[in-house]
């Protein structure tokens, strides 16, 4: 983890050549477009772009340049093309407003496109109303930092906010993404670090990735996205200290895990989601130190999951703690705090003396007959749940926390 | 004398039981009418009909010439003393009087009985703590309190001690002399004998007879009401 940050960090400390020039771009001067500035610049030069609105129809940056916006200059593609394409490594792009890329179904038009490059920094830009926001394909060692990406919220035709395809060792830090199709989208993006980002109100997923092994996600917030967060077909990821909040609706999940293996899910907060975590075909996952608060279902663990461990989590104010669709095998619960636990602790060691069964009978009834959701918290439902907990007959005997905590874990 | 209450063709059944079968009678000002009759003869139902507690199946009741059906204003002119007074447990005597004053929007103009029964000193007592006799005194005091034109007393002396009963009797006679109508139901014939001007005798929901006490005694040649009644009721012709 730490070595990865250091590695990415070191790669960006690039000594500037002593002969570097600075080119000023300003409206109404000799150098009135970035395109012209790039043409006359040499590798290592700095381009300073003054305040103003520039039409930028797929401006190509094919030299190692530092391009700085001063007073937030606007680059506008007027829905005719992409705005910027970077095809050279060692580029830094900072401080621009980039807007109105073309929308289309044939090509993925983007606000900023990075193609086959290394050591590029995209920082402090505001992207508005682009089809795709920041689009990285086949890149390495890229930093995407503190950008503010707002899509068009067009339900039929919208691209992703930050889109990575076939990338390696990318840092996404402090970005805000909203109103796109998927907030952050990864496909074949490996060994990346995604931290301190905020992804909300995207049309589909706040975060969506596939085949993206060894990534680390931490301190991100995914809030109120159309379909929550969905991650699939990936190994060895770590999701640490993220917040998944208010992802509401049927088949909408705080996190959907499908064919995820060897993952660590630690210290996350799942708050007011219809389902906190949904797990399908996911093996060897450790879920620890997480808080599940006021979700409809804290977790749905399908019978296709194996060897998963749930320890030291807090389950509070959830309508249902755990449900499943069949027989769970090799799923282990230990040392969790369950607010619905009604056992006792005679030896005062902080651990309940009788096991807690997180799957309630009524949860299983709803599984079969969703319409009975209307009877939640009625006397009759409380009664059958109590009877079932006392004498389990239908709910799975094997799913239980043998050491339920009496008090919530303090974080 | 002026008619104050007119009962016309009153009928009332409770389920299959016919309690009043076509009862018609008038009551005039300035007299005491005793309504007598055996148990279940319809005495209380007649009183309650006049008070609007029982709603007749058919027939009409006029109070000062106006029908009382579906009205309640006429009750301003009536003081009623129930057979058994029963008031909210935690209510104080003073509160009860205050409440009735509030409801009637009248002041307590006649406090004779209040004084006679020394109720004013008990204003802070709650109803729950009172004996049956005291409750009756409270009911009696309430009935007379607003100087109404008509007094309806249901078994007034039941439960009262002899002194209190005597005070009540005197009060009744005093009110009569002021031109009030007093309707009394009673089982105690000697009492009726002392105060009544007229006797209304009900039997199985019908008026057996309605005569002045004097006429009754004259017709039967008896000096006592009880004997006169025995005599008249044993003659089948009535």
């Amino acid at each position, binding site marked *: 983890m730490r070595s990865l940050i250091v590695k990415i960090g070191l790669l960006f400390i690039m000594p500037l050549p002593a002969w570097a020039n600075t080119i000023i771009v300003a409206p109404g001067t000799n150098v009135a477009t970035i395109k012209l500035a790039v043409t006359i610049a040499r590798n290592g030069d700095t381009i300073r772009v003054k305040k103003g609105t520039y039409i930028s129809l797929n401006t190509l940056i094919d030299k190692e340049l530092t391009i700085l916006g001063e007073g937030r200059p606007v680059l506008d593609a007027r829905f005719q093309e992409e705005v910027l394409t970077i095809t050279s490594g060692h580029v830094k792009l900072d401080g621009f407003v980039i807007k109105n890329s073309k929308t289309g179904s044939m090509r993925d038009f983007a606000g900023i496109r990075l193609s086959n490059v290394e050591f590029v920094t995209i920082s402090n830009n505001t992207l508005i109303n682009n089809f795709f926001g920041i689009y990285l394909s086949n890149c390495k060692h890229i930093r995407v930092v503190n950008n503010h990406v707002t899509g068009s919220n067009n339900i039929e035709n919208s691209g992703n906010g930050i889109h990575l395809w076939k990338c390696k060792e990318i840092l996404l830090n402090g970005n805000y993404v909203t109103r796109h199709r998927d907030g952050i989208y990864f496909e074949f993006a490996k060994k990346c670090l995604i931290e301190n980002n905020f992804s909300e109100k995207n049309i589909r997923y706040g975060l969506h990735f596939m085949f993206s092994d060894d990534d680390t996600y931490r301190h991100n917030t995914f809030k109120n996205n159309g379909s929550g967060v969905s991650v699939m077909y990936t190994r060895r990821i770590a999701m640490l200290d993220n917040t998944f909040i208010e992802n*509401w*609706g*049927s088949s909408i999940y705080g996190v959907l895990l499908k064919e995820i293996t060897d993952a660590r899910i630690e210290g996350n907060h799942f708050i*007011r*989601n*219809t*389902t906190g975590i949904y797990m399908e075909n996911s093996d060897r996952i450790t879920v620890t130190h997480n808080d599940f608060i*006021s*979700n*409809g*279902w804290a977790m749905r663990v399908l019978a296709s999951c194996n060897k998963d461990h749930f320890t030291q989590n807090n389950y*509070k*104010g959830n*309508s*249902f703690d755990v449900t499943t669709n069949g027989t769970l095998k090799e799923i282990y619960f230990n040392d969790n705090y369950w*607010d619905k636990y009604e056992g006792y602790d005679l030896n005062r060691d902080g651990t309940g003396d009788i096991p807690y069964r997180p799957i309630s009978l009524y949860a299983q009834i709803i599984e079969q*007959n*969703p*319409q*009975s*959701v*209307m*009877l*939640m*918290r*009625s*006397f*009759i*439902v*409380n009664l059958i749940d109590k009877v079932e907990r006392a004498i389990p007959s239908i709910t799975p005997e094997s799913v239980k926390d043998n050491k339920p905590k009496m008090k*919530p874990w303090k974080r | 004398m002026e008619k104050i209450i007119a009962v016309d063709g009153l009928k009332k059944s409770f389920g299959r039981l016919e309690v009043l079968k076509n009862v018609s009678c008038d009551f005039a000002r300035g007299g005491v009418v005793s309504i007598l009759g055996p148990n279940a003869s319809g005495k209380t139902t007649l009183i*309650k009909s006049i*008070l*609007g*507690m*029982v*709603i007749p199946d058919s027939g009409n009741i006029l109070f000062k010439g106006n029908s009382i059906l579906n009205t*309640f*204003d*006429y*009750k*301003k002119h*009536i003081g*009623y003393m*129930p057979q*058994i*007074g*029963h*008031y*909210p*447990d*935690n*209510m104080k005597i003073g*509160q009860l009087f205050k*409440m*009735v004053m*509030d*409801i*009637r929007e009248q002041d307590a103009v006649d406090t004779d009985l209040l004084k006679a029964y020394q109720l004013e000193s008990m204003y802070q007592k*709650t109803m729950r703590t009172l004996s049956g006799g005291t409750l009756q005194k409270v009911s009696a005091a309430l009935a007379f309190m607003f100087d109404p034109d008509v007094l309806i007393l249901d078994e007034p002396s039941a439960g009262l001690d002899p002194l209190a009963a005597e005070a009540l009797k005197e009060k009744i006679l005093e009110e009569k002399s002021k031109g009030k109508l007093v309707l009394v139901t009673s089982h105690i014939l000697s009492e009726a004998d002392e105060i009544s001007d007229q006797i209304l005798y009900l039997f199985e929901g019908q008026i057996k007879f309605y005569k002045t006490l004097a006429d009754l005694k004259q017709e039967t040649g008896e000096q006592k009401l009880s004997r006169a009644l025995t005599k008249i009721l044993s003659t089948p012709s009535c």
Partner: protein
Amino acid sequence: MLKIAKYIILDIVRSKVLLAYTLLLLAISLTIFMSDADVTKGLVSITTVILIIVPLVSIVYATTYYFNAAEFTEMLVSQPISRRAILLGKFIGISSSILLAFIIGVCIPVALFAFSLTGITLMVSGCLLTLSFISLAFLTSTITRDKAKGIGLALMLWFYFSIIFDGLVLLFLTLFADYPLEKVMIVLTALNPIDLARILILLQLDISALMGYTGALYQQFFGSGIGIVFSLLMQLVWTLVPLLFALKIFKKKDL
């Protein structure tokens, strides 16, 4: 009307039963809030308790009081005041007294320990639940003549609404699991004041779970304000309709 209400309140607030009810509610609320730091969990526990106790006490106490005050009612009828004013006065008097107990016993602790939208919903639905069961008590009291029958009927109504009704609904859902029953379910809910109060609280506590339901009608019912407005309105109907029936009967009743 208000005069009568005033004196009934003065009478009831001094009754030991009402005091006991207030203290019971207060004890429950305080115990729950003191023993658990988690406010939401406290609200859940209080909900469970009040959905049972509030209807029971409201209907039984109001029915008992009504019958105990039968002679007093007669006496009131002999006074120059309409029967309508008497019955409504009694209703206002009894319901404000019981509401007072609920406010002291539940609303104040909730406001102190768990002031939130859920807390407010709990207070409002508890109050409406109180009113609707007092209204039902008036209906049972006016349609029966003697106290034993009246209280028996009141208890049966409580048992039916709090337990049997939902049991039947569950059975019904199980038998007809394959049919779309959304509309039917919403109608069924409206037929039970306790369910209405429960749904109001669900809409706060369990909205995350309720939103997981696929049906469009439920989505609309739960997701927009419609569910809340519907439940509140139906609760009011449950307060007004039995009372109006009671009034109609009382106007023609022989005392």
